[in-house]
Protein backbone atom coordinates (compact mmCIF):
# COMPACT_ATOMS: atom_id res chain seq x y z
CA UNK A 1 0.00 0.00 0.00
CA UNK A 2 1.48 3.31 -1.08
CA UNK A 3 1.17 5.95 1.63
CA UNK A 4 1.51 9.00 -0.63
CA UNK A 5 0.83 8.43 -4.31
CA UNK A 6 1.11 10.72 -7.30
CA UNK A 7 -0.11 10.43 -10.87
CA UNK A 8 1.24 10.56 -13.42
CA UNK A 9 4.79 9.46 -12.71
CA UNK A 10 6.05 11.00 -15.94
CA UNK A 11 4.54 13.87 -17.91
CA UNK A 12 5.90 15.15 -21.21
CA UNK A 13 4.02 18.02 -22.80
CA UNK A 14 4.32 21.02 -25.08
CA UNK A 15 4.80 24.61 -23.99
CA UNK A 16 1.53 26.44 -23.50
CA UNK A 17 -0.47 23.37 -22.49
CA UNK A 18 -2.43 23.00 -19.24
CA UNK A 19 -1.77 19.92 -17.11
CA UNK A 20 -2.67 18.52 -13.71
CA UNK A 21 -0.80 16.31 -11.26
CA UNK A 22 -2.78 14.38 -8.67
CA UNK A 23 -1.75 13.45 -5.15
CA UNK A 24 -3.46 11.19 -2.67
CA UNK A 25 -2.44 10.07 0.80
CA UNK A 26 -3.96 7.21 2.79
CA UNK A 27 -2.19 8.01 6.05
CA UNK A 28 -5.06 10.01 7.51
CA UNK A 29 -2.88 13.11 7.61
CA UNK A 30 -4.48 16.52 7.59
CA UNK A 31 -1.68 18.53 5.96
CA UNK A 32 -0.41 18.14 2.42
CA UNK A 33 2.32 19.89 0.45
CA UNK A 34 3.71 20.40 -3.02
CA UNK A 35 7.44 20.77 -3.62
CA UNK A 36 9.45 21.48 -6.76
CA UNK A 37 12.86 19.88 -7.25
CA UNK A 38 14.89 21.48 -10.01
CA UNK A 39 17.61 19.98 -12.18
CA UNK A 40 20.22 20.75 -9.53
CA UNK A 41 18.23 18.74 -6.97
CA UNK A 42 17.28 21.87 -5.03
CA UNK A 43 13.98 21.23 -3.27
CA UNK A 44 11.63 24.08 -2.52
CA UNK A 45 8.16 24.17 -1.02
CA UNK A 46 5.37 25.60 -3.17
CA UNK A 47 2.16 25.14 -1.19
CA UNK A 48 0.76 23.51 1.90
CA UNK A 49 -2.85 22.81 2.79
CA UNK A 50 -4.33 21.84 6.14
CA UNK A 51 -7.83 20.37 6.06
CA UNK A 52 -8.40 21.91 2.63
CA UNK A 53 -7.23 25.34 3.82
CA UNK A 54 -4.20 27.02 2.23
CA UNK A 55 -1.47 27.51 4.86
CA UNK A 56 1.71 28.17 2.90
CA UNK A 57 1.81 29.84 -0.50
CA UNK A 58 5.33 30.58 -1.60
CA UNK A 59 6.18 32.96 -4.40
CA UNK A 60 4.88 30.78 -7.18
CA UNK A 61 3.48 32.04 -10.51
CA UNK A 62 -0.31 32.14 -10.45
CA UNK A 63 -0.24 29.68 -13.34
CA UNK A 64 0.12 27.12 -10.56
CA UNK A 65 -3.12 26.46 -8.71
CA UNK A 66 -3.49 23.80 -6.03
CA UNK A 67 -6.87 22.21 -5.43
CA UNK A 68 -7.79 20.21 -2.34
CA UNK A 69 -11.19 18.51 -2.72
CA UNK A 70 -10.73 16.76 0.62
CA UNK A 71 -7.94 16.35 3.13
CA UNK A 72 -6.65 13.18 1.47
CA UNK A 73 -6.10 14.84 -1.91
CA UNK A 74 -4.07 17.80 -3.10
CA UNK A 75 -3.91 18.27 -6.85
CA UNK A 76 -1.70 20.71 -8.71
CA UNK A 77 -2.94 22.36 -11.88
CA UNK A 78 -0.52 24.22 -14.11
CA UNK A 79 -1.70 26.57 -16.86
CA UNK A 80 0.29 27.73 -19.87
CA UNK A 81 3.28 25.51 -19.17
CA UNK A 82 6.74 27.02 -19.73
CA UNK A 83 10.12 25.41 -20.31
CA UNK A 84 11.23 26.46 -16.82
CA UNK A 85 8.45 24.40 -15.28
CA UNK A 86 10.37 21.24 -16.15
CA UNK A 87 11.24 19.64 -12.81
CA UNK A 88 10.27 16.88 -10.46
CA UNK A 89 7.22 17.73 -8.37
CA UNK A 90 6.85 16.00 -5.03
CA UNK A 91 3.74 15.77 -2.93
CA UNK A 92 4.05 15.20 0.81
CA UNK A 93 1.81 14.89 3.85
CA UNK A 94 2.09 15.16 7.60
CA UNK A 95 -0.10 14.96 10.66
CA UNK A 96 -0.11 18.28 12.46
CA UNK A 97 -1.63 19.34 15.74
CA UNK A 98 -2.86 22.90 16.12
CA UNK A 99 0.63 24.14 16.87
CA UNK A 100 3.09 21.42 15.99
CA UNK A 101 4.08 19.74 12.77
CA UNK A 102 5.14 16.14 12.49
CA UNK A 103 7.34 14.37 9.98
CA UNK A 104 6.51 14.75 6.32
CA UNK A 105 6.10 11.69 4.10
CA UNK A 106 6.88 12.15 0.43
CA UNK A 107 5.33 10.73 -2.69
CA UNK A 108 7.36 9.19 -5.54
CA UNK A 109 7.47 12.39 -7.57
CA UNK A 110 6.15 13.42 -10.97
CA UNK A 111 8.79 14.13 -13.58
CA UNK A 112 7.50 16.95 -15.77
CA UNK A 113 9.26 17.75 -19.03
CA UNK A 114 8.04 20.72 -21.05
CA UNK A 115 9.18 20.77 -24.68
Amino acid at each position, binding site marked *: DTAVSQTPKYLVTQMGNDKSIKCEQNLGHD*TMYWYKQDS*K*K*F*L*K*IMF*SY*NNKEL*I*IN*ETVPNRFSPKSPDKAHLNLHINSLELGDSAVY*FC*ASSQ*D*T*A*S*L*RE*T*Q*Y*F*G*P*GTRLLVL
Partner: protein
Amino acid sequence: AQSVSQHNHHVILSEAASLELGCNYSYGGTVNLFWYVQYPGQHLQLLLKYFSGDPLVKGIKGFEAEFIKSKFSFNLRKPSVQWSDTAEYFCAVEGPSRASKIIFGSGTRLSIRP
Protein backbone atom coordinates in the same frame (compact mmCIF):
# COMPACT_ATOMS: atom_id res chain seq x y z
CA ALA B 1 17.34 34.80 6.56
CA GLN B 2 16.49 31.18 7.14
CA SER B 3 18.82 28.82 5.31
CA VAL B 4 20.45 25.41 5.34
CA SER B 5 23.97 24.84 4.09
CA GLN B 6 25.40 21.54 2.99
CA HIS B 7 28.98 22.32 2.08
CA ASN B 8 29.83 18.97 0.51
CA HIS B 9 28.20 18.80 -2.90
CA HIS B 10 29.65 15.44 -3.90
CA VAL B 11 31.37 12.94 -1.66
CA ILE B 12 33.07 9.82 -3.00
CA LEU B 13 34.01 7.03 -0.61
CA SER B 14 35.05 3.42 -0.76
CA GLU B 15 32.95 0.75 0.90
CA ALA B 16 33.59 0.41 4.65
CA ALA B 17 34.84 3.99 4.93
CA SER B 18 33.34 6.24 7.59
CA LEU B 19 31.00 9.03 6.55
CA GLU B 20 30.28 12.48 7.87
CA LEU B 21 28.11 14.94 5.93
CA GLY B 22 27.97 18.49 7.16
CA CYS B 23 24.81 20.51 7.72
CA ASN B 24 24.62 24.00 9.16
CA TYR B 25 21.49 26.07 9.48
CA SER B 26 20.38 29.59 10.12
CA TYR B 27 16.97 29.72 11.77
CA GLY B 28 15.75 31.76 14.73
CA GLY B 29 14.28 29.95 17.71
CA THR B 30 13.41 26.31 18.30
CA VAL B 31 13.96 24.03 15.34
CA ASN B 32 13.12 20.57 14.10
CA LEU B 33 15.91 18.97 12.08
CA PHE B 34 15.80 16.22 9.49
CA TRP B 35 17.95 14.18 7.18
CA TYR B 36 16.26 12.76 4.11
CA VAL B 37 17.75 10.38 1.55
CA GLN B 38 16.84 10.12 -2.12
CA TYR B 39 18.04 6.95 -3.82
CA PRO B 40 18.50 7.17 -7.62
CA GLY B 41 15.12 7.58 -9.29
CA GLN B 42 13.21 7.39 -6.02
CA HIS B 43 11.39 9.73 -3.67
CA LEU B 44 12.67 11.25 -0.48
CA GLN B 45 12.69 9.03 2.57
CA LEU B 46 13.24 10.11 6.14
CA LEU B 47 16.54 8.89 7.59
CA LEU B 48 16.23 10.50 11.00
CA LYS B 49 14.84 13.52 12.78
CA TYR B 50 15.47 15.62 15.84
CA PHE B 51 12.62 17.38 17.60
CA SER B 52 13.90 17.55 21.19
CA GLY B 53 15.73 15.52 23.84
CA ASP B 54 18.97 13.59 23.26
CA PRO B 55 20.97 15.54 20.66
CA LEU B 56 22.44 12.31 19.30
CA VAL B 57 19.78 10.83 17.08
CA LYS B 58 19.86 7.34 15.61
CA GLY B 59 18.08 6.67 12.35
CA ILE B 60 17.54 3.84 9.93
CA LYS B 61 20.27 1.88 8.14
CA GLY B 62 22.93 2.64 10.74
CA PHE B 63 22.88 6.42 10.29
CA GLU B 64 23.07 8.87 13.16
CA ALA B 65 23.24 12.63 13.51
CA GLU B 66 24.28 14.98 16.28
CA PHE B 67 22.57 18.28 16.96
CA ILE B 68 25.07 20.83 18.28
CA LYS B 69 23.03 23.89 19.12
CA SER B 70 26.01 26.17 19.72
CA LYS B 71 27.33 25.44 16.24
CA PHE B 72 23.93 25.39 14.52
CA SER B 73 24.94 22.05 13.07
CA PHE B 74 23.29 18.69 12.48
CA ASN B 75 25.93 16.49 10.84
CA LEU B 76 25.08 13.04 9.53
CA ARG B 77 27.40 10.12 10.28
CA LYS B 78 27.76 6.45 9.48
CA PRO B 79 30.74 4.40 10.70
CA SER B 80 30.94 2.09 7.67
CA VAL B 81 29.23 2.84 4.37
CA GLN B 82 27.94 0.33 1.85
CA TRP B 83 27.55 0.55 -1.91
CA SER B 84 23.77 0.69 -1.37
CA ASP B 85 24.20 4.02 0.45
CA THR B 86 24.83 5.71 -2.89
CA ALA B 87 22.19 8.44 -2.96
CA GLU B 88 21.48 12.13 -2.51
CA TYR B 89 21.24 13.29 1.10
CA PHE B 90 19.23 16.34 2.15
CA CYS B 91 19.36 18.16 5.45
CA ALA B 92 16.25 20.14 6.37
CA VAL B 93 15.13 22.48 9.14
CA GLU B 94 11.78 23.86 10.18
CA GLY B 95 10.21 25.72 13.05
CA PRO B 96 7.89 23.79 15.33
CA SER B 97 4.67 25.56 14.44
CA ARG B 98 2.28 24.61 11.67
CA ALA B 99 2.78 27.93 9.91
CA SER B 100 6.54 27.50 9.54
CA LYS B 101 7.90 26.08 6.34
CA ILE B 102 10.53 23.42 5.98
CA ILE B 103 13.75 24.52 4.30
CA PHE B 104 15.96 22.02 2.55
CA GLY B 105 19.67 22.18 1.91
CA SER B 106 20.95 21.80 -1.64
CA GLY B 107 21.83 18.16 -1.05
CA THR B 108 25.02 16.11 -0.98
CA ARG B 109 25.53 13.43 -3.56
CA LEU B 110 27.21 10.38 -2.05
CA SER B 111 28.92 7.92 -4.37
CA ILE B 112 30.28 4.67 -2.94
CA ARG B 113 32.91 2.73 -4.84
CA PRO B 114 32.40 -1.03 -4.52
